[in-house]
């Protein structure tokens, strides 16, 4: 019969499927008290490898300082920066660090607005990453100036003839946007930390207690404080979303509003924003794996959360790849012959290795994220995430150097130009500086948001309760029917 009632076993299968619980982001053994205990322990006793990382970073930073002092004493000549190669690794790395900082706050704000709970154990260190990458990027503005004693040149103020800087210059926009982003990100990070600083205050002793007491400002967790806090935090997240997009769009205008071949491209702003998100997401994966091990955060930085992060990184990588290919296609099919020659030069000239390295690391390697083994093997994933960021650094290098090497005027060509060891040393030092600051932050401040993870646990428990009630109601409704059927 075509309209026959489904047999009993089929109905059972449907009922079971309806109540299959989805994989939880946190384990069932995570309790509020355990969260406090684990996170506070991370401030006191990380694994010994923490000190290995910290002192390696310090050594790298010291070498960078040595290179900077050498450049300061001997002049910019030692960096091999000269016309037309005036930016070199300094500005390429500046853009890399700005981009790296893009994801932390942006993703934290975006995921907060859309109530994506899985952000909660990982957003704090991502925001800290943003703050320290911006501070690292700011160093390159000074390093690139050469004349450090005239650092105030970068501040927008009028000269003795009352002439102001050119407010229509993308460089002034850039400085303002980055300043706004740094201020807002820092406040967003601090604001989100206040309830956790109060927990630290209640459990610390000595100098730490004094520090936390000062920073927590007397937070008590009253209902009025929470109500105001929630509104303020959401409002700030709403501001930070468009701000983050505007910052990297503005960084792209440093290039796109110029007439240089390879830069005068309409798609540069979204291309830069996506590139920044991409490298930032890879950075978050790297730090996820490092912090998970160093600070024993296995219970909070879980595989389901990592899977979501990886999926998001892959999606962003694909959009970035699309925009990159669009940029090449626009140039290839366009009528600007110099830009076309620049594209061919990038792919086949002196910097072809960097170009194809970028293609391999940033466009091909993301596909490995589709392999289950890669997603579940943390060592492999750590290496892959680093490779992705090497690709993104190469991307910044090959935006700047080939264009300066072969621009409009043949008499300015410097084909085969290569940065000096001083530049490499300062770039390496910047990685040491970032790692050192970041690890120090994680040692002093809670890098996992305790109160938000508690919210997550609370919601998970509520869901479980609701689920249990639903099952009870369902069974209560279904059982008599089943009994009747069997009878």
């Amino acid at each position, binding site marked *: 019969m075509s309209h026959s009632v489904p047999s009993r076993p089929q109905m059972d299968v449907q009922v079971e499927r309806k109540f299959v619980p989805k994989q939880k982001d946190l384990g069932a053994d995570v309790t509020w008290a355990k969260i406090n205990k684990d996170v506070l322990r991370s401030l006191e006793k990380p694994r010994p490898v923490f000190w290995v990382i910290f002192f390696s970073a310090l050594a790298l930073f010291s070498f960078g300082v040595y290179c900077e002092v050498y450049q300061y004493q001997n002049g910019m000549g030692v960096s091999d920066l000269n016309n037309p190669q005036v930016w070199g690794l300094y500005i390429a790395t500046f853009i890399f660090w700005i981009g790296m900082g893009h994801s932390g706050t942006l993703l934290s704000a975006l995921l907060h607005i859309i109530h994506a709970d899985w952000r909660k154990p990982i957003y704090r260190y991502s925001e800290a990453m943003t703050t320290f990458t911006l501070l690292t990027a700011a160093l390159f503005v000074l390093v690139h100036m050469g004349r450090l004693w005239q650092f105030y040149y970068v501040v927008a103020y009028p000269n003795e003839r009352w002439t102001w800087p050119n407010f229509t210059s993308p460089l002034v926009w850039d400085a303002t946007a980055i300043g706004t982003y740094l201020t807002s990100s820092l406040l967003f990070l601090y604001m989100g930390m206040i309830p956790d600083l109060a927990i630290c205050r209640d459990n610390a002793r000595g100098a730490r207690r004094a520090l936390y007491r000062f920073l927590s400002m007397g937070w008590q967790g*009253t209902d009025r404080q929470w109500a105001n806090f929630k509104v303020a935090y959401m409002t700030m997240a709403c501001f930070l979303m468009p701000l983050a997009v505007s910052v990297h769009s503005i960084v792209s205008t440093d290039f796109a509003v110029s007439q240089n071949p390879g830069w005068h491209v309409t798609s540069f702003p979204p291309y830069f924003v996506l590139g920044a998100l991409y490298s930032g997401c890879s950075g978050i994966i790297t730090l996820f794996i490092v912090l998970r091990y160093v600070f024993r955060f296995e219970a909070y930085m879980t595989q389901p959360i990592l899977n979501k992060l990886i999926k998001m990184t892959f999606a962003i990588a694909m959009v970035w790849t699309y925009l990159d290919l669009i940029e090449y296609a626009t140039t290839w099919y366009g009528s600007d012959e110099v830009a076309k020659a620049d594209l061919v030069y990038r792919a086949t000239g002196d910097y072809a290795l960097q170009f194809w390295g970028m293609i391999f690391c940033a466009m091909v390697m993301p596909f490995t994220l589709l392999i289950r083994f890669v997603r579940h093997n943390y060592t492999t994933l750590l290496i892959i995430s680093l490779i992705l960021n090497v690709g993104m650094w190469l991307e910044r290098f090959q935006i700047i150097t080939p264009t300066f090497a072969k621009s409009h005027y043949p008499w300015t060509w410097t084909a085969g130009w290569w940065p000096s060891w001083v530049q490499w040393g300062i770039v390496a030092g910047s990685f040491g500086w970032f790692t050192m600051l970041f690890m120090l932050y994680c040692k002093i401040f809670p890098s996992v948001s305790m109160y938000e993870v508690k919210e997550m646990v609370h919601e998970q428990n509520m869901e479980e309760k609701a689920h249990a009630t639903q099952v009870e109601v369902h069974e209560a409704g279904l059982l008599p029917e089943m009994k009747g059927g069997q009878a």
Partner: protein
Amino acid sequence: MKKSHTLALYADMDEAANAIRELKSSGVSGFRMEDVVVKSPIDHPELSELLGPRPVYIQWFTLLGVLLGPTTGLVLIASAQASFIYQIRGGRPVVPLPPDMVLTYELFILSGVLMTVLATFVAMKLPGNRSPLYNASVSADKIGILVKADPQSIPQINEILGRHKPLEIMGDQAR
């Protein structure tokens, strides 16, 4: 009349909710529901709902920030540009509005954020001193109900709070 305080600590949110419900419906004189404060490690909208409306005014300060910031910013930028009118602009406007919008936009965000933060600290009464009845366990895993009332009402309030399995009830002397 000087008021006294009492603080009850609960391990279970449902019990804390029941205590608030009973306090609300008890008709005990000498305290108002506005003087009942819940202290907890996370935000509990369920409990806040029982306490009654707790208005938040931060967004008005944010609005003020996003109106004042870009206006002031644009005026400052435009006046700086206009103060140097002898520069050679090649026929372009001395005060070019489209590119000035970039900085105006950044100032819109910056002033909005700064006003929000400022208003938040004012609304949360931070920096401030913790109440003498603060208990560190409310930042860990307990829920505290703090009631400010006339000293003669405190025993009745404590009785109500005590009916819902509190871990502890603490009180201060009349202040």
